[in-house]
């Protein structure tokens, strides 16, 4: 054993356990791919540690070198894959990712052949070290090309983040950069460059830095996102409750009032005769039934909507957008009323059906209308007297149906516009900035697209496109 071995073994085991912890904690694709990436890093670490141990026999050292290199072949591609999942760009770079995997598997096939590592040679203080074969050069090029690609993805993602999230992703990049730096230096002795391998001593910093960011800064902490989503939902429930309370108040007020009035009149002897008493009691009962039915209808509408917020997967079917909007309106009427916002919709009756999940569509429209209403909220503060307006248009093209949700609010600054669909990005006091992020995700689940157009002091328009059922 030498300090290099110890440092590497320590690095390998910490990497494995920390990634396992992250995977168990997150239980999602990011955690899974990070764990897979870390397994290859661990195997490389153990293999390389055995290779550079002075007491290792030549045969064991050769075997370890080949195992380490076989694992190392998979490191760049799994790292790139992780960076794509982390930055939500798998779809965008899917072909590149597939190509890189194919290349990695091709290299893997050769990893135990003399074409990759023909034999070992002695470099500076190491008795045995990888002697590169022709395929090894391909691997070197592959490694130094793909690893930066992963960092570029993370860097691009980081640019869209703010606050704690930005700090977290910076932490992730710095920690992994330290790890890769140490690993990259091990290429040098293979090419007969006797560069001191002190970099290996820095490698254990990587799992510890990851652990630090994970525990202290909640990197990879899905609970943080869940809590934010929960707070956002509470804000939405607040709007719904206010509307519901207001809608229910009037019918209950009437039920209470007519019954009370009837009793008071009866006690005060204000009814002339039995016929009038019977007629009045019939009227009171009929009105009670009518108003109670109204309350039941309101409750049904709200309970349907809250149910809709539970469904995860899109169950797509044909929907009537007019009816859907009519159903949502009472849920936000209170919010619109207190902010004196006019709502208009132009939905052609004869729209060809397109497939969406009804409940997802309700949530999408609810979120966008509430979003517009919040944008309009403080609009009359500057003394301008104008009509605050939210409009929903639906238009039909050859293969698509487009929905436009438009407000004449303050608009979104051009520099903020690219980030509005990012999680936790918010320009308003209400909520946690997940509304538009969730909306976009729901639209994508239904194979739709969303885009935005905004002009300062003129307003914002969201465009949603769905493919028509052909």
């Amino acid at each position, binding site marked *: 054993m030498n300090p290099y071995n110890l440092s590497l073994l320590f690095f390998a085991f910490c990497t494995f356990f920390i990634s396992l912890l992250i995977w168990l904690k997150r239980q999602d694709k990011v955690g899974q791919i990070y764990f897979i990436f870390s397994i290859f890093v661990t195997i490389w670490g153990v293999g390389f540690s055995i290779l550079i141990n002075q007491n290792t026999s030549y045969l064991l050292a050769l075997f370890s070198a080949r195992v380490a290199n076989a694992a190392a072949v998979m490191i760049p591609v799994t790292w790139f894959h992780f960076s794509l999942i982390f930055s939500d760009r798998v779809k965008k770079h899917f072909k590149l990712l597939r190509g890189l995997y194919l290349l990695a598997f091709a290299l893997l096939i050769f990893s135990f052949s003399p074409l990759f590592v023909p034999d070992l040679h002695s470099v500076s203080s190491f008795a045995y070290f990888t002697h590169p074969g022709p395929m090894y050069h391909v691997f070197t090029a592959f490694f130094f090309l793909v690893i930066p690609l992963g960092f570029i993805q993370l860097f691009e993602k980081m640019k869209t983040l703010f606050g704690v999230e930005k700090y977290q992703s910076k932490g992730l990049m710095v920690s992994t950069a330290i790890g890769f730096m140490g690993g990259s230096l091990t290429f040098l002795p293979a090419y007969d460059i006797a560069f001191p391998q002190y970099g290996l001593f820095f490698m254990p910093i990587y799992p510890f830095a990851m652990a630090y960011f994970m525990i202290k800064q909640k990197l990879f902490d899905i609970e943080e996102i869940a809590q934010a989503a929960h707070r956002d939902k509470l804000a939405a429930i607040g709007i719904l409750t*206010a509307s519901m309370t207001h809608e229910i*108040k*009037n019918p209950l*007020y*009437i039920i209470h009032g007519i019954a*009370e*009035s009837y009793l008071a009149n009866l006690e005060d002897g204000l009814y002339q005769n039995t016929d009038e008493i019977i007629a009045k009691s019939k009227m009171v009962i009929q009105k009670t039934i009518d108003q109670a039915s109204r309350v039941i209808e309101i409750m049904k509408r709200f309970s349907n909507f809250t149910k809709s917020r539970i469904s995860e997967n899109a169950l797509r079917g044909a929907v009537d957008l007019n009816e859907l909007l009519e159903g949502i309106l009472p849920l936000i009427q209170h919010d619109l*009323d*207190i902010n004196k916002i006019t709502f208009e919709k132009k939905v052609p009756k004869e729209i060809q059906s397109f497939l969406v999940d009804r409940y997802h569509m309700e949530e999408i429209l609810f979120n966008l209308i509430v979003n517009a209403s919040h944008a309009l909220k403080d609009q009359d503060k500057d003394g301008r007297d104008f009509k605050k307006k939210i409009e929903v248009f639906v238009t039909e093209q050859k293969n698509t149906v487009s929905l436009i949700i438009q407000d004449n609010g303050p608009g979104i600054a051009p520099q903020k516009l690219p980030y509005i669909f990012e999680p936790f990005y918010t320009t308003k006091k209400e909520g946690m900035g997940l509304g538009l992020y969730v909306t976009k995700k729901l639209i994508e689940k239904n194979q739709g697209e969303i885009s935005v157009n905004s002009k300062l002091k003129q307003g914002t328009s969201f465009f949603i496109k769905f493919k028509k059922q052909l």
Partner: protein
Amino acid sequence: MIDDEAGVVEMIQDHFSLRGYEVFTALDGQEGIEVCCEVKPDVILLDLKMKVMDGDKAVPFLREIVPTAKIFVISAYQDEITQKRIAGLAIDAYFEKPLTMLSIENKMYCSASHFKGSRSVINEPV
């Protein structure tokens, strides 16, 4: 009685008519002003949020038409914006919905005596 909820208007009308009050009704602020011009009521019960003209918009006109009338604003909203809207109004009292029939009667008397030191603002039953 000015309220855009027909059920509420009807209920108030039924109750107070039977008790000898002459009740006139309107379903929005605009109509309310017209009716008040014609009948010059002693007490105006006014809903804050209506489709055509809101209660707070109607108050200055009503004050001009019937300066001596007691104006009571009723609203189902209890938020900050509503409180602000009401704060600057020349009204005699503000009631939050839901109010019971008896509490309307009581509150009308209480507020009337509080503001004028008398209970005679509401006409004696006709």
